[in-house]
Structures are given as C-alpha cells and as structure tokens.
C-alpha cells in the first residue's frame, strides 16, 4: 500500500500520529537500536532516520552536534543503510530517510534510491532539494514507489504549496515556523491560518514539525494536523536521561 494511504488508515484509528526522528550513529547505533525499540513499543507511527552530513545547513545546534559527533565516531553511509535495513525488517512501521542531498548525490542517486527501496525504506525528507533541482530524484522516487516528502513553510504561498504538493507523496512536512530545528514554536492565530492554507493546498496527510516537544504541543496539533513530528526533543531526552526515558516520554505524548 502507498505510504499516504497507509497513514490515512492508521490515522483513522488515532486522533493524531507521531513521527519521531533520530540521527544515525549518535550517540551510537546501539543506542539508536534501543531508542527505536522504545519508540515503536510506545506506539510511534513513523520514524525518520537522519543520515549524518558534515554540512547540516537546516538544522539547529542539537542536531548539528549529533551529525558532527556521529561522523566523528566514524559513521559511514553504508553503516546507516545496514542499520536501516535491520530496523525496517524488524518493525513494521514506515521508516524514512532524512538527510541532505549530497549524501544521495555522492552515492549515486539511482543506486541510493534502489538500495533504499530494497531495504524497505518508504520515503525521503531532503530539506535542501526543492523540486526545481529534484526532477531526476522525483522521477526515480516515482519509479521505485518511494515517497519524496515535500516541505511546506510559513513563507510558502498557496500557489507554491500546490506546486510542491503536486510533486509530493506520502505526506507533507509542514515546517511550523521560520528558523532551524530545535527551538520553541508559538502556536498562535497566524499558525492556524498557515495550517489552513496547507490544508487547502493538498489532501495529502499533513505532518507538523519544528519545536514540538511535549504533550501540550501534540494536543494543540490534534485535529489540525495528521502527524506531529518529534525531533530534537527525543535527542535531548536521550542525552539527558538515556534511551530508557524515551518510552515513557512517547507514551505520555498522546491520549
């Protein structure tokens, strides 16, 4: 089943879905393994696996640090692919790759997508690859039936959103605010207006990310969005309280 339909189906059983994020190889694959176990066990619906890149232009301090240290620890793209294969085989929720375009480009676009498909990855989030630069990528994604997740931003016009939606699949990643990952988001009137705009522009499921860090945030999004994206929050949690803290945290975010 296509990712979008699968998410709609799950969504019909839950008020809101949770997508979590982690940086591969940080602090270690062993910890990643434990964190993912806890996430799945506590009902996470989608997980984005970030392949570290030396120039994480769109990320904030926390995730930059994770990217750097993972690479410094010797994490290679091949290791990430192997780990992702293991996870996708072990858990039957959708896994996505989040990374920057150079990782795909350098690996070889076609080879990378082919490999991703092979190991059971369902789609990609590539923040530095707008559709104008991604023709080949979009074509291959369609060919391999992988979801090239498109990103909406508060600065996107409705017309622009329609264009993006036209290229997208799986769901739309709605960046909640300006800026980079990791800092707090204000869910004010203009945010609602923004989400309404997103909604008008596409019937793909809407995921909202950037600065979602607790139950209150998730509740605000419930009914407005289909997926809440928890990124930096879990990384910080693991940093401070260790992997075993992830389970209770996730469990506490909903219902």
């Amino acid at each position: 089943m296509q990712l979008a339909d699968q998410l709609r189906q799950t969504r019909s059983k839950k008020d809101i879905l949770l997508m979590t994020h982690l940086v591969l190889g940080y602090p270690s694959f062993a910890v990643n393994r434990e964190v993912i176990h806890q996430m799945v066990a506590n009902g996470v619906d989608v997980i984005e696996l970030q392949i570290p890149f030396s120039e994480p232009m769109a990320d904030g301090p926390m995730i930059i640090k994770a990217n750097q240290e993972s690479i410094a620890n010797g994490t290679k793209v091949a290791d990430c692919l192997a780990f992702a294969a293991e996870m996708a085989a072990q858990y039957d929720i959708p896994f996505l790759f989040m990374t920057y375009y150079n990782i795909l480009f350098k690996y070889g676009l076609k080879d990378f997508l082919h490999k991703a498909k092979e190991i059971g990855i369902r789609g990609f989030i590539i923040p530095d690859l707008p559709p104008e630069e991604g023709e080949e990528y979009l074509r291959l994604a369609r060919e391999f039936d992988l979801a090239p997740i498109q990103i909406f931003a508060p600065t996107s016009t409705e017309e622009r959103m329609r264009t993006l939606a036209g290229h997208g699949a799986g769901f739309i990643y709605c960046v909640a605010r300006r800026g980079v990952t990791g800092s707090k988001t204000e869910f004010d009137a203009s945010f609602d207006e923004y989400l309404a705009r997103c909604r008008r522009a596409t019937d793909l499921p809407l995921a909202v990310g950037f600065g979602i860090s607790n139950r209150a945030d998730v509740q605000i999004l419930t009914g407005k969005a289909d997926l809440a994206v928890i990124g930096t929050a879990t990384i910080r949690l693991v940093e401070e309280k260790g992997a075993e803290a992830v389970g209770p945290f996730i469990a506490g975010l909903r219902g």
Partner: protein
Amino acid sequence: MNKPGYFGQWGGAYIPEVLYETFRELREVYAKAKADQAFWQEYLALMSSYSCRPTPLTRADNLSRHFGGAQIFIKREDLNHTGAHKANNVMGQGLLVKRMGKTRVIAETGAGQHGVACATMAAKFGFACTIYMGEEDVHRQRPNVFWMEKLGATVVPVTTGSRTLKDAINEAFRDWVSNMDTTHYVMGTVCGPHPFPEMVAWFQSIIGQEARKQILTSHGKLPARVYACVGGGSNAMGIFQGFLDDTEVELIGVEAGGKGLDTGQHAARLASQDASPGVAQGYKTMFLQDSDGQMRDTHSVAAGLDYIGVSPLLTDLWEKGRVRFAAATDQEVMAALDLTIKKEGIIPALESTHAFVQAFKEAGELSRDQAIIINQSGRGDKDIFTIAHAFDDPSWKEFIRKKGEEYAAR
C-alpha cells in the same frame, strides 16, 4: 540552453523551502538592477567616491627585470577602501538591500576581509550587521575582528564543524532562515545558491572592465596571461570577465596548495585530484569531500582561500578548458611575498600572493613584448600576525610577548 542558475552542469539553487520566496525576490531585484542602466551608474559613482575606483594597474618593472621575461602588471585591488576587492561586492549588494528595503545584513567571513567590508557597508548604509566567522579564523585574523566590532557589527565565532569559512556559511544560512523578512545575506564570493554566483560576479566584473582598458593603454595590446588567486573565486571571476572573449588571453586561477597537494592539507579543488562533484552550501560544484560526501578539512596559510568549494562559474570554465588551474604552497607564498615587498614596495595579502607565485613561475617563459597581469586582490597589512609569525620575526615576537605581559599584569 542551461537551466537558469547553471553554468554547464554546475551551480543551481539547493535551498530550503522556507527561503523560496526570499530567493524569488532577490532574483527579481537583481534582474531589475541589471536591466537598469542607472543602477550601474549609481554603483560606479559610489565606488569612485567612497572607494578608489578605478584602481590602478601598476607596472612592476623590477619584478619584470628580475624574471627577465614578460612585462608584469599588477591590478591594485589592495587600494580599495577596506583593502581588498571585497568592497566591490558588498557595496553592490548594499545598493540592492536598499532597494529591497531590508534593514539588516549578515555575512560569513574567512580572512575577515569580507566581514570588514560588509560591516563597513552596513555602517555606511545604516544597516544592522552580524558577521559569522569560524572560530579558528577569529584567532587567525584578530585585527579584522576588532575592526568589525568597532564598525558596529556583531561578530559571532562559529564553533561548529571545522570552525572555518564553510561553517560560517552554514551558520549564516541558519540565521537567514529565521530572519529573512528583515535580513539580506551578503554572500562574500561567487558561490552559494543562484543568483549569488552570477550576481557577485557581476559586481566584481568592474575589475576586469578596468584592467582591460588599462592594459591596452599602458601596454598597447592584450596581456598574454592573467593570474588570480581562487578562494571562492570572486576576485578571479572579477578580472577574468574582462578577458573571457579574448581567446588569446590565457586565464590562470591559483588555489591554496597549503602544505602540498600530496599531503591532503590544502584547499585545491581544481588543481588537485582530491575534489569531486558535490552539492553543498546551496550549489553544485567540485568539493573537497570523502567518498560518502562528507566535506574534508582544508588548509591554507591564507584564511581567505581555505574553503571546500569553488565558484560554479570557474568549475565550468575549468571544465571547458578556458581557465587553467594551479596551486601555490604556503612556503612558495612566503617566498613570493618577500620578493614582491622588496622589489616593488608592494605588500599583497597572503591570498593574493598565491597568484604572484604562479606568475613568477611562468614570467620567464614569456618574451619581453608580452604582458601578464596579476590581480592583487588585497593588501597584506591585515595579515601582519600571520606574516610576522611565518617569517619568525624575533623583534615582533618580543614585542607581542612584552605587550602580552603588560596585559596579563592588569
């Protein structure tokens, strides 16, 4: 026909969605300005009254005699206000910022020259200004940091990644995606997402326009070769554009050979075998990266050349064989600097001196009736700490030691 923003297969605009509108506006304002004769006139007037344009083309007779070959001419971008060609770019972008009605500018800086130039432009135009600078460069180029702060700019030492130019660029983008409504990012070189490479090249083309006129006046014909150092490539593109259509003029870009091309400790993207095609910092070019696409650490005695990527325009011209690339090692640079100072009484910046190195290697091959131009992108004053250190000057060290004790005592 190329895709807009592409030069051959190089360039593009690999930007996060949140900046889409910002770039649309920038492309628009830039296109309008380019189509508007009056804008270029306003630019020329500013550069001739606030800076010292046209900058002279100096005939270096002593060096010419010394190498016994071509007549050596030096294009004197060091005589610009703030001491480098960077002034051309920041003043041009400053005029665009006024047209966009933005009130704040941000910039990355390596050597600190672009940072000083940008802070200067901001002071002159009344913009708020934040400069991102790799922590390592903050140490290498302290005097420039001091001046930026005196000019009213906030200097943010960047502690991520390799703490040099590339990381400063990432940090500037992170600021921009938060503040694009009020803020323009003044990219310091002919790199980054479209339209930056093309736009910065346009402002720097003033160098080549002047140089072509000047060499025809003082030498009576075109030069055989034109040399420029290449960090991001803005001073090189600036002067090269004056001669691109003159196929008989050979264009040579000189990169940072650092400790030697075989040591891996260099910043030679096109002159070495170590770079490969990649996409980072918003554009596609040849990057110094590993097989996974992770960027490598680079090295040069010249902070301004110490960068992983290179202008897509130059990569295209290199691929097409129009521009030849060479590298100069730190050691060769110090020797050429010493010679240039003693023979001509001219002190090029460490970055610029890379161009001198290659010109000196080749001048002897040419005949006396041929001319070569070296683009002196900046002056070496700013480098006194690096240069005095590299020359291991004892009285300088003694002076610093004493001053240091004096400050420690307080």
